[in-house]
């Protein structure tokens, strides 16, 4: 009771600040999405364009999560467990995508892999055009979300007591066995939250995608690009219907992140 009373003022201020910043805009998305009633919303979501955009986004996000699940864990493992010259700069490079504007990521990918880019020029005669194709979008998303995976896994690795590993080595486990049976189980929490974060970010990625996708409906248009295209064309109901679906999907992802993370595991682990 007294806790509640003490928290009333700061919590109230926080809600007041968050109201125009987060809650009202999010509410507006849903209000506009359902303004024409549920059938209108359903008709938009059911349309071929919206269905493609949503499915395509989920597939790209899953692929990104898988690729970065491996790549990010590997990067975190190397950075945490090995000592070598240039480790610090490499750590900076891995985290660089957080600092680079996503539009710049898009342009730089275009300038490398595009038909006028260095690599693109070589690949062009081979009939391989990564840009304006799903693989180009995947490249962009892997680039943009890599730091989230590394960021989720590396702190766990850093804090993992080396005694476990040493024990494994003393009983004759190889480096791979140690990783598979000692480190990986301990990493599970970080791994899963990293994958969920990567998935969520990839689902909503816009800046880099808009540069490399070509924005072709039924081909390379992701859900955020669909929303933007519809909104620019003045079709606010269409844009908001898909926006509401995306928002709901991210709620579900964060529900899992929070219930399985703070409420369940971390809370319990912290109490012990």
């Amino acid at each position, binding site marked *: 009771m007294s806790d509640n009373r003490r928290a009333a003022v700061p919590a109230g201020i926080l809600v007041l600040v968050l109201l125009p910043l987060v809650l009202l805009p999010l509410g507006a998305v849903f209000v506009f999405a359902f303004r024409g009633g549920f059938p209108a919303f359903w008709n938009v979501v059911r349309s071929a364009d919206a269905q493609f955009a949503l499915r395509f986004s*989920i597939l790209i996000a899953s692929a990104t999560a898988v690729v970065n699940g491996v790549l990010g864990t590997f990067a975190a493992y190397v950075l945490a467990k090995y000592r070598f010259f240039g480790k610090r700069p490499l750590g900076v490079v891995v985290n660089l995508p957080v600092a680079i504007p996503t539009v710049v990521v898009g342009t730089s990918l275009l300038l490398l892999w595009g038909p006028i880019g260095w690599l693109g020029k070589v690949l062009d005669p081979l009939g391989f055009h990564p840009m304006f194709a799903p693989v180009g979008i995947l490249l962009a998303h892997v680039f943009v979300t890599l730091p989230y995976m590394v960021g989720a896994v590396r702190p766990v690795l850093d804090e993992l007591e080396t005694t476990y590993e040493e024990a494994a080595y003393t009983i004759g486990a190889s480096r791979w*066995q140690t990783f598979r049976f000692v480190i990986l189980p301990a990493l599970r929490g970080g791994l899963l939250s990293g994958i969920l974060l990567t998935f969520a970010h990839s689902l909503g990625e816009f800046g880099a995608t808009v540069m490399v996708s070509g924005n072709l409906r039924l081909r390379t248009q992701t859900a955020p690009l669909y929303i933007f295209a519809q909104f620019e064309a003045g079709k606010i109901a269409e844009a908001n219907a898909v926006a509401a679906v995306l928002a709901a999907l991210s709620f579900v992802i964060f529900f899992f992140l929070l219930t*399985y993370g*703070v409420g369940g*595991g971390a809370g319990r682990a912290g109490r012990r």
Partner: protein
Amino acid sequence: MPALAAGGAFLSECALPDSVLYPEVPLIVLLMKTSVSPRPRGRVVKPGVLRDRLRFWGPIVLGAALLLYAAWPWLPGTGVARPRTVVFYGFSILGEAMDGGVFPAFQKSWREKTGEKIEFVSSFGGSGTVTNQILLGVPAEIALLALEPDARRIASAGFARRDGWKALPHGGVVNRTPFVILVRPGNPKGIRGFADLARPGVRVVHPDPLTSGGANWAILAEFGAGERERAGGGREMLLGIWKNVVAQASSARAARTQFENGFGDALVTYEQEAVWDRSRKKLRSDVVYPASTILSEHTLVIVDRNVRPDRRALIEAFANFLWSDEAQRIFVRYGFRSVDDRWNRGQPQFGTIADPFSVADFGGWTRAKPEIIEKVWRDDVLPKAHR
């Protein structure tokens, strides 16, 4: 810490799926360290097992369902054979007319003629944006652009035959539309023509000439209207209007959306926007027809480099279809003016323009682009307007 106490036994035990051994181990720990130590195994049989199982399998089942939903159309055996596609890029305001009218009409006529079902894949944006995308390598096979100079850029980069569109009907021009001014209902600022946009206190929404074809036409319209009042009046007109420009959107359609969302007092745009909305009773602004204004001409380009030989016939059939009576009537229904005046009488929403002019009056785009857009607007008016 009990972990590893069993030594080798621990390793062999862990070879079993962890979920079998420790179903209550929390799945996800938000950016948190987790302990390696396994929980005592006795707790497994206590009540709450079901809840724990649900906690473990719930997200997995949900994730798998989501993935299945997403991948469904691509799974073998679920989809029908993919039909051949035409990849079409168009300038911003074409969206409804193509998606809603022209594409379905061509699909029908092609199916009647050949029995083949084809699909359209399309993207719409500012004419300059679309052109830049094509130059960067998007797989566009055919593009309808707002500006002939954009077509020329595609040709000179080697993506299309030089002047290839001139061999098409009407010199490659598919349709036209004059430039008008949209104002707030009741025209509270009393705007009658381009000259009124230059008055102080009028806030003008204008698309960006760097990426929007419509914006280039609008500049010619403003310049031409000024010149027709008196020689040398064009530059003054542009300077006056551009001092009042409060927003530059990337395409004509994006500018329209800004205006519709309550921004500015006046919008310079295609008549098509107004006609199409008024014919559906959706227009929430008044249309002002300036006494003299330009009729834009929209050029079709076949992007030869992206057209595979086995699709050539399909693409050319579609190109020619755009000048068919059927397609031209569709364009008129959606508010464009046909290149064939016969069909224009069918649209009662078209306004009358006392003194229309065209880009040919400036010597064509080969002269208008460097002399008016670049020399007058970009190098002279723009730097002075925002001082």
